[in-house]
């Protein structure tokens, strides 16, 4: 059954060489049951305006590069479908709270620096040699960090976080989730290296639990839970340092 409906897609455009600020341009795009928002944008680029700039790669909600604001909501454009917006229209904008480089592409440099700062890798005091085998974990130990390891760095949560938008010195949901993911891993011994960041104003204390990050996350990471468990950890660290020489930081 041929199904060729058409929908209006308004796209935010910005050319850094000629524009002083972004503007909206409207396109009419045919779609059917399976047309994703990303495919709609690709239709525009292929048939209507080849200069439209946006990022994507996997088309299957894995790579995390296709995030856009769709009608004001941060979405993976490959995981959102035009049919769900019909008979209304769409307004597609670059991810909120990030500087716009061109059209729908934003500058993620700030996030990448934050990601590095949380040391998102397993830190050991001394690595055991390969001959001694792998580090074993019980299912329970795995479950304490598993959900936080599903992050695909799509940055939807940053676009959902007004605190990051108001003050981008805040480390933000995904980076703090990754931080918590390693702190909660029984194989890791790097907690004391990460706690100074957690304990700072730029760490968990920039969060006021708006909670929208957890709702927009396409991977059920629940970054708000990671950040707020970080607050509990930081609070224990704050008070316990008076009791124990190592400041309540274990290992």
């Amino acid at each position: 059954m041929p199904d060729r409906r058409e929908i209006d897609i308004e796209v935010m455009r910005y050319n850094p060489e000629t524009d002083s600020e972004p503007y909206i341009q409207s396109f009419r795009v045919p779609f059917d049951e399976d047309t994703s928002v990303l495919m709609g944008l690709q239709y525009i680029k292929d048939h209507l305006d080849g200069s439209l700039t946006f990022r994507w790669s996997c088309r299957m909600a894995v790579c995390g590069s296709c995030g856009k604001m769709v009608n004001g909501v941060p979405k993976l454009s490959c995981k959102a479908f035009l049919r769900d917006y019909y008979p209304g229209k769409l307004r597609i904008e670059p991810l909120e709270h990030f500087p716009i480089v061109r059209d729908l592409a934003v500058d993620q440099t700030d996030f990448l620096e934050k990601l590095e700062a949380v040391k998102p890798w397993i830190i050991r005091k001394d690595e055991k040699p390969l001959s001694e085998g792998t580090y074993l974990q019980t299912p329970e130990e795995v479950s304490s960090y598993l959900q936080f390891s599903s992050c695909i760095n799509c940055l939807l949560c940053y676009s959902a976080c007004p605190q990051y938008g108001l003050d981008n010195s805040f480390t933000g949901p995904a980076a703090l989730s990754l931080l918590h993911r390693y702190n909660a891993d029984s194989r890791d011994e790097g907690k004391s290296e990460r706690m100074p960041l957690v304990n700072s104003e730029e760490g968990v204390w920039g969060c006021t639990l708006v909670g929208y990050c957890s709702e927009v996350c396409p991977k059920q990471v629940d970054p708000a839970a990671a950040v707020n468990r970080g607050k509990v950890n930081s609070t224990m660290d704050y008070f316990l340092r008076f009791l124990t020489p190592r400041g309540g930081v274990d290992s």
Partner: protein
Amino acid sequence: MKPMKRSNEPIFWSLFGAGGVVASLVAPALVFITGLALPLGLLGPDALSYERMLALVSSLPGALFLFVVISLLLWHTMHRINHSLHDIGIKAGLGGKVIFYGLALVGTMAAAYFLFATPL
């Protein structure tokens, strides 16, 4: 990267959290009783009478209960109001902390004074 300065939010966040428990578990009932049920005559004739309330604040558990409720409600709400200023784009910084946490402290001291140090 510049060295990170430890925030003293844990102090205020702990008080905020404790106050949140009071605000969510106890406040709805208290507000309903003192602010609505009593004036609308839904309670018994003697409810919240001078004699009964005097007996309540003269007992240590009663006085402690009221102290905890008043003080923690203030720490809870002042913490939120302080952060709300930032949310609406007002950079109050240290001044905001001094004013709002100061208010909570003054309220706490007043509650302590009238509940524990005032002869009845």
